[in-house]
């Protein structure tokens, strides 16, 4: 029957792989392996219980025969050995499956699990044996059957204990494992499994053939016992607790060893489990590993506080560096700095000053009062050592500090200072001399530099947000300015107009506008504010207002320039000026009147004479002379136009545009362009000029605002 059971185990394995494949196919990965595990575990438990019961029956039967016939011999020794092996295998496999589900780094949890579920077995076995002793003493009779029963039960408990301990120790031994360690362990398990063969074939492991092998395995175990990395992760209190638990487990080992060695080669017993080499080796491993863990825990106890401090520093450091991602504020960062540095340096008193508008402000204090802070600050100020890196490990030696009668003997000052900005100062005090050694100071400095970095980054983030907002505002400014420039001129049959405007920055200083003065008269203005950007844009808007305000009263261009100059003189800053040209076109008179205030010369094509030329008129820019004498510097001109005449009005951004060789586009090239294109429509003339300009400058080479207006007078008379 046992044979059957044994063979059933590999069969389970096959179904398990099948199950896994199936589960992958059906995408029900969760349930099937779980189900298999539960099934396998219940099967293993049944196998263990049945094999143990059969063993018990066989042993009791043999014991009975011993009493009857006086022959201490097992019936069916081979079957008995097989049962032992089946029992061992099933219990160990069961524990193997159970412990695999244990995860995490709760080492005390593992130890407690081992103690409560397995090590207690030893105390139960002691109780059982004592109970047997008491009973035999009381009844004063030998009861071999009862002895066998107790022996058999204790054997069961021992195996459960060993299996549990074996696999929990595996879990801890392989903590932070590498590949080599994993392979070493797998071989160990295999070797132990091979030992079971000795039992099946009833070899005596004490024979000389096996002694060297056993010795080798012994060394192997010793090597495995050096893997105790988990102990380092225990805190002081955890170590104390683990010492108690490990001690109890060691005691369990001792009890079992004592019990089974005590009954070794006993004439009263038909069976001797000390002959099972597997048990010996498993006990050797469990015992040595427990002892090693116990000793390492014990001797690392005094140093554990150092490691605790280090790991806490590391954790605080991490918290500090991650505070940006967690969206924490500056105040929270200072809170963290204050707490962490006090813990890291074990300071007895401390305070933190935040520098606001150049004035220190105490935001955090610990074990110190404002009066003491004031006195210390006063002294530091007198020594001129405030707000700088400063360590004094013996305050009593300094007469100034001695006079303050402070309860502290060491002081460190840590300014939170980036390249050019002091955001705060941290003061730490200790009640012992040499309180701040190099190691501590290094840790503290790391904390402060990380804080500086964090604070800088927080500021950068808020600054970039601010910049983003400015960009948005600028976008609005661009839109507003765009709306100030007319998109559509009045369409009439006697002239056509085409415009082009391009700002070098978000907002510019160029502008043009028009105003219908009467049915037959239209005023067109073009202008350029010196400088670029926001201030130019403001003046441009101002000029537009002046244009509309003044031209409501319908005045000649020269008069407009005089009044505009006087208006601008009051509001333009000293270094700013505006160039402008105003044209009043009257189609009933077939002529236009214009004045130029420092603006670029008007380019003109006269169809009658078939000539392209610039109007050479004098005129000073607006805002250059800010008194009445300006009137002497402005000229007005009247010109009769012919049908098909073309007028090109522009800003200096056109003629002063440069190519890569730093040459200017120039008036001559512009004139040449008009000579080639005057016969086209106004729109096409504009495109021809702009295209030529773009070809000249090349792409992305815009440094000044560009404005271009092309006006073409048409031969057709307006319909009245």
């Amino acid at each position, binding site marked *: 029957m046992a044979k059957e059971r044994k063979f059933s185990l590999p069969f389970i394995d096959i179904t398990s792989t099948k199950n896994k494949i199936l589960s992958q196919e059906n995408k029900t990965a969760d349930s099937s392996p779980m189900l298999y595990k539960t099934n396998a575990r219940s099967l293993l438990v049944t196998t263990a219980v049945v094999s143990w019961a059969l063993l018990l029956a066989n042993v009791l039967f043999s014991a009975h025969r011993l009493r009857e016939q006086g022959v201490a011999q097992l019936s069916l020794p081979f079957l008995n050995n097989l049962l032992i092996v089946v029992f061992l295998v099933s219990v160990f496999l069961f524990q193997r499956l159970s412990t695999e589900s244990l995860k995490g780094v709760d080492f005390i949890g593992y130890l407690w699990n081992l103690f409560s579920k397995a090590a207690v077995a030893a105390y139960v076995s002691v109780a059982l044996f004592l109970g047997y002793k008491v009973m035999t003493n009381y009844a004063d009779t030998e009861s071999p059957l009862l002895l066998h029963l107790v022996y058999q039960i204790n054997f069961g408990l021992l195996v459960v204990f060993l299996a549990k301990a074996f696999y929990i120790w595996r879990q801890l031994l392989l903590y932070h494992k590498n590949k080599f360690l994993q392979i070493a362990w797998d071989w160990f398990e295999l070797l132990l499994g091979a030992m079971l063969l000795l039992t099946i074939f009833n070899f005596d492991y004490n024979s000389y053939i096996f002694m060297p092998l056993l010795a080798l395995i012994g060394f192997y175990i010793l090597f495995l016992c050096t893997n105790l990395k988990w102990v380092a992760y225990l805190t002081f209190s955890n170590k104390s607790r683990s010492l108690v638990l490990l001690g109890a487990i060691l005691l369990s080992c001792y009890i079992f060893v004592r019990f089974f060695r005590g009954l070794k080669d006993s004439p009263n017993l038909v069976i001797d489990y000390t002959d099972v080499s597997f048990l010996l080796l498993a006990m050797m491993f469990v015992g040595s590993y427990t002892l090693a863990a116990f000793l390492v825990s014990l001797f690392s106890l005094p140093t554990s506080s150092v490691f605790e401090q280090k790991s806490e520093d590391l954790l605080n450091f991490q918290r500090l560096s991650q505070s940006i991602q967690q969206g924490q504020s500056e105040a929270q960062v200072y809170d963290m700095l204050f707490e962490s540095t006090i813990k890291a340096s074990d300071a007895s008193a401390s305070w933190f000053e935040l520098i606001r508008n150049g004035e220190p402000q105490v935001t955090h204090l610990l074990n110190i009062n404002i009066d003491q802070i004031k006195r210390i600050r006063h002294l530091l100020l007198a020594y001129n050592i405030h707000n700088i890196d400063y360590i004094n490990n013996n305050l009593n030696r300094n007469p100034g500090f001695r006079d303050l009668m402070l309860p502290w003997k060491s002081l460190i000052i840590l300014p939170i200072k980036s390249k050019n900005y002091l955001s705060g100062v941290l003061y730490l005090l200790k009640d012992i001399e040499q309180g701040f050694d190099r190691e501590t100071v290094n840790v503290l400095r790391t904390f402060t530099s990380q804080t500086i970095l964090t604070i800088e980054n927080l500021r950068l983030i808020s600054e970039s947000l601010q910049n983003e907002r400015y960009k948005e505002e600028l976008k609005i400014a661009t839109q507003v300015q765009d709306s100030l420039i007319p998109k559509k001129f009045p369409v009439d049959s006697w002239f056509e107009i085409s415009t082009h405007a391009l700002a070098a920055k978000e907002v510019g200083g160029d502008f043009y506008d028009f105003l219908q003065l009467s049915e037959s008269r239209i005023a067109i203005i073009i202008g*350029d504010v*010196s*400088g*670029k950007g926001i201030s130019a844009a403001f003046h441009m808007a101002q000029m537009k207002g002046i244009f509309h305000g003044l031209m409501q009263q319908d005045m000649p261009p020269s008069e407009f320039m005089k009044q505009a100059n006087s208006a601008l003189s009051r509001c333009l800053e*000293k*270094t*700013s*000026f505006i*160039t402008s040209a105003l044209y009043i076109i009257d189609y009933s008179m077939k002529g236009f009147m214009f004045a130029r*205030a*420092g*603006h*670029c*010369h008007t380019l003109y094509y006269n169809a009658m004479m078939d000539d392209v030329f610039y109007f050479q008129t*004098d*005129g*000073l*820019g607006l805002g*250059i*002379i*800010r008194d009445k004498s300006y009137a002497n*510097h402005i000229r007005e001109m009247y010109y009769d136009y012919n049908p098909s005449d073309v007028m090109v009005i522009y800003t*200096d951004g056109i003629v002063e545009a440069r190519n890569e060789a730093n040459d*200017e586009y120039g008036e001559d090239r512009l004139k040449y362009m008009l000579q080639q294109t005057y016969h086209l429509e106004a729109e096409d003339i504009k495109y021809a000029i702009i295209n030529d300009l773009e070809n000249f400058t090349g792409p992305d080479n815009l440094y000044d605002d560009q404005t271009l207006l092309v006006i073409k007078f048409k031969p057709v008379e307006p319909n009245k």
Partner: protein
Amino acid sequence: MPMKITNEIKDNTIIMTLDGELDASSSVMLDEELSDPEIMEYSKILVDCKNLHYISSAGLGVFISHLQRFEDAQIKLIFYNMQDKVRNVFEILGLDLLMTIVSDYEEARSIANE
């Protein structure tokens, strides 16, 4: 191209040499030079524009803003050796009628000594 401004003092006259392009950034430099109170101790400022390749509206603005002050203090401001391109900018704006622009140093010197 960075702007270089050098001042040379010769019997009660400052000879200011402009070398490079007078754009928005270099005009700040020029403004600092012209704002120097020491400059008011001299009665003549001759500006050598031989190597002035470009002048922006900001550069013009600096000269314009000091024009009235120099006039009030009876300091003569004379430009000479000006390139045609730069002179054209002065002319378009109407500054040639407001400022003294002459062809060479000798002429500038003789006008200054009038």
